[in-house]
């Protein structure tokens, strides 16, 4: 069995490092966007609209990955789009995690009426189609970065609450909690000092996965033109434009799609890799 375990760990390690490396690249690109982007991402040039990427016939080498229908540089727009994607991932991921995990901990540890109310809320939330719910919320509160973050938090807290609740319930039934209680420790103290550290690994995994989901939700909202103002570069907005002109200019769709694909894949593989790392059986 030892070799099998080593094999799993080695593969998980590679997956972890590749995902982390790509995400590090995205972070650096987002931080240095103004220095890295060859063009102004908003600058329109109707005379150089729909130029193909550099290796194709009729390309302008100044626009490495080509231009969209308004003559805006695809590469620069992808580079600046990483800022929105990462901001949404980090902020909404963290907020969703804080709120969802807190509610899950309270419900799973204290049970009783707290659990009853929170569980019923989770049931109600699960009965909403999430994409439709987020689109509806954005339509109500208006587009913008803050609205997107709010919509993600409002919709996705159940992801954390459900899992953390179950985990806290399982921990609460264990002997060490009973002995802590016998030792006369307060319930809040037990929750904070004993239960939380034990559910923290699963929370970290969920947080990583949630960041990937947040990037997708932002892209979906941009896709239906409900994200940030339409001329600000976002990957989802570019994909939406690319989908509309896919027969005339495939590169407007392909390059942001590949970037989004790799980023989402990295977040999810990082989460899965961490899950394996934290798994006591494998450790």
């Amino acid at each position, binding site marked *: 069995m030892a070799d099998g375990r080593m094999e799993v760990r080695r593969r998980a390690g590679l997956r972890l490092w590749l995902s982390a490396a790509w995400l590090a690249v995205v972070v650096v690109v987002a931080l240095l966007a103004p220095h890295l982007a060859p063009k102004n991402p908003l600058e329109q040039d109707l005379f150089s609209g729909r130029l193909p990427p550099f290796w194709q016939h009729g390309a302008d080498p100044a626009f490495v990955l080509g231009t969209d229908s308004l003559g805006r540089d695809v590469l620069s727009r992808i580079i600046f789009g990483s800022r929105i994607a990462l901001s949404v991932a980090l902020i909404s991921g963290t907020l969703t995690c804080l709120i969802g995990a807190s509610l899950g901990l309270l419900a799973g540890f204290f049970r009783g009426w707290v659990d009853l109310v929170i569980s019923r809320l989770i049931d109600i939330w699960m009965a909403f189609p999430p994409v439709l719910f987020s689109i509806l919320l954005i339509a109500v509160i208006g587009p913008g970065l803050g609205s997107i973050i709010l919509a993600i938090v409002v919709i996705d807290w159940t992801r954390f609450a459900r899992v953390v609740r179950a985990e806290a319930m399982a921990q609460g039934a264990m002997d060490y909690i009973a002995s802590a209680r016998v030792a006369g420790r307060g319930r809040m103290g037990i929750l904070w000092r004993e239960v939380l550290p034990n559910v923290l690994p699963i929370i970290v995994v969920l947080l990583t996965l949630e960041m990937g989901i947040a990037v997708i939700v932002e892209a979906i909202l941009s896709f*239906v033109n409900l994200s940030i103002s339409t001329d600000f570069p976002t990957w989802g907005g570019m*994909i939406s434009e690319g989908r509309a002109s896919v027969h005339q200019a495939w590169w407007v769709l392909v390059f942001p799609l590949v970037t989004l694909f790799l980023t989402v894949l990295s977040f999810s593989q990082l989460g899965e890799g961490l899950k394996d790392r934290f798994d006591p059986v494998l450790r």
Partner: protein
Amino acid sequence: MTLLRTILLRLITTAVTLFGVAVIVFVVVRVVPGNPIAMMLPPGATQVDIDRLTAFYGLDKSIAQQFLIWGAGVLHGDFGTSITSRQPVLALVLGRLPATLELSVLALAMAVLMGGAAALTGTRLRGTRVEGGIDIAGGMALSIPDFLWGLILILLFGVLVPVFQISGRVTPSLKLPFSSNFYLVESLARLRFDLTRDLLSHMFLPALALAIPLTAIIAQLLKQSLKETMHLDYVTLARTQGYSEARVIWRQALPNAILPTLTLVGVQFTFLIGGTVIIERMFSYEGLGNMAIDAVINRDLPLIQGIVILFAVIFTGVNLLVDLTYAALNPRLRHG
């Protein structure tokens, strides 16, 4: 707890959930900024006209009053009137429902077939490279949501190798002899296979995009259950009796391994239905989800409410069915 009590309890929680959904949608929709009435009237409409229309849609009353009136109507099957098309919401929504149901069920069928095939192949070829390949492909399929699969499929099979249609439900120039909106079912029933072909060539890519993540989930879970079953004594016994490995998997292991997968498929099916909203939009497929996004953009409050409630009824209905089936099949829940 007896089965009857389980059923009753589940019915009550389902009712509470649906009531909660109705309240939340109603409140959220009512805080939409922008007056939908003002958008319906031509510029230069008098205040009297505005007041009359506001009263017609009941928007002059308090939110609680509006909810009671609307709720009473819903219980009688009256979901109000759409603001943009001025037709009854129920008729509009039911008109689009068949398109979404056909797409979801087709996607579910594809996922079950592909996922089942992958699990059986992986079990038959345990420990080979094929099994490793299936695991890696499954991991990829699972990490990428249907939204991205849809775009990738559009590029691959709509643009690069254009073998499938990437927008609409059916070629618009075709004459449709259908009397209902279940086009696919009717085309089969009327033996109009030319139409079936056209419908499937439109539905294939969106259905596949919805099916890919579920395929991976089914493949993983079923393979895991099969693996555990393959170690059981009765399977070894069947093997010593000289049955072929394929037959042992198919006839002995599968019937016992399939129950957990079936339960999961039920729950995951609701996620798949939720995914139709954006996938229908992406493929300009004229279903419920596409109509929902239009309704949100047009601020058509009664229509949005109707669609969200219908989705919630479908979701809770599927979950209820899964739970009850599970309770009926599981002897521990039946008697315990």
